[in-house]
């Protein structure tokens, strides 16, 4: 299994299940979790992360609904990363969310679109 890093914060505003869900999702999108890979069992995962089994259950249920994993009774939960379109769409949406924030900030500070492009180029290089 590729590296699956989950770090949850108890003081974050985001609910635990959301934090875990997003971290799994980004691992799938980044390719750290490959298509067909078996995720930890609900029970094991909850014990390791020290969260309620119901929280993990919710994570897996929602990931399945969103099409990122598939649960098979008796076998476990598998990563579904074969759907290229879904992957691309999700990546797009995640970036868009951040961009909306960025654009709003720029507009409120009076930064032009051109300046924004320039800043983006510089930052992309440096990071």
């Amino acid at each position, binding site marked *: 299994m590729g590296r699956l890093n989950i770090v949850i914060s*108890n*003081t974050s505003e985001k*609910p*635990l*299940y959301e934090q875990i869900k997003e971290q799994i999702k980004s691992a799938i999108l980044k390719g750290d979790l490959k298509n067909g890979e078996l995720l930890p*069992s*609900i*029970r*094991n995962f*909850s*014990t390791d992360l*020290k*969260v*309620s*089994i*119901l*929280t993990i*259950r919710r994570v897996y249920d929602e990931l399945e609904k969103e099409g990122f994993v598939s649960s098979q009774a008796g076998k476990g939960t598998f990563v579904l990363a074969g759907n290229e379109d879904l992957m691309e769409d999700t990546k797009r949406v995640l970036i868009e969310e951040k961009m909306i924030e960025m654009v709003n900030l720029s507009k409120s500070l009076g930064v032009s679109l051109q300046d924004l492009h320039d800043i983006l180029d510089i930052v992309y290089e440096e990071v």
Partner: protein
Amino acid sequence: METALDVRNVSKHFKNFTLDNVSLELKENCITGFLGKNGAGKTTLIKIILGLLHKDSGEIVFFSNKYKNVETIKNKIGVVLDDGYFYDNLNLEQMKNVVAATYSEWNENTYQMYLKKFHLNENQLISSLSKGMKLKYALALSLSHNADLLIMDEPTSGLDSEIRKELMDILGEYVQSDGKSVFFSTHITSDLERCADEIVIINNGKIIEQSSKDEMIESNRMVKGTLDDLKKMSDEYIKILDKTKYGFTGITSDFREIKQLLPNIVLEKASLEDIFLAKIGGDRNEDDL
């Protein structure tokens, strides 16, 4: 998720206390904590579940009625009671022999493994065991007959934090296997905070709430502010925990509204203990303080 135990509208009346229309549901593979202060009714309900007390009304369904008779059900339940309830004159082995003979799936190897793990000597008299060792012995017995449901009444009271952690670890391991569930009552919230999946709160013989531990903790916040702030928050729901002339501390589930109303108010993660106190506490307007 399968239901390991379903308690429906159970009531029992005593002279000075009533268990009032209690309902709760244990989900399979979960560690469900039964939280309440002393005298809230935890032991009473557990005794009713185990058949030591008879309910006046209501229904109790084990394992979704998978098993037809009481004997089979009892075979599948492991019990750890506060105070052991053993024959003090006997030694561990003699007591074990009496108990083991009653369970059809008794596994001597498993039992010996736990004895070794807990450093228990079979030839010791039960009366000479410390509280912690009695708990471990009771645990060894309850885990050695392939029980699917572990019911424990205040297993950790009077024990130091090291043993308590050990116990929580063992419970966590136990529910890893399919079909195993744990139900334990306590008034020590830190144990539940560590390992419970669901929490059921009981107070004065009534069930106050049953929800996922994470949800319970996440849907509440501790609020700290000035007394002026408090006046401005008349519409929001807060349970006051503490009030001095310098300010107040409280628990709220309306933290988003409060944050909007008073952006500088202090909101922190609430401990399960404080949430518990708030839920069983009195009303909001404590003008007498």
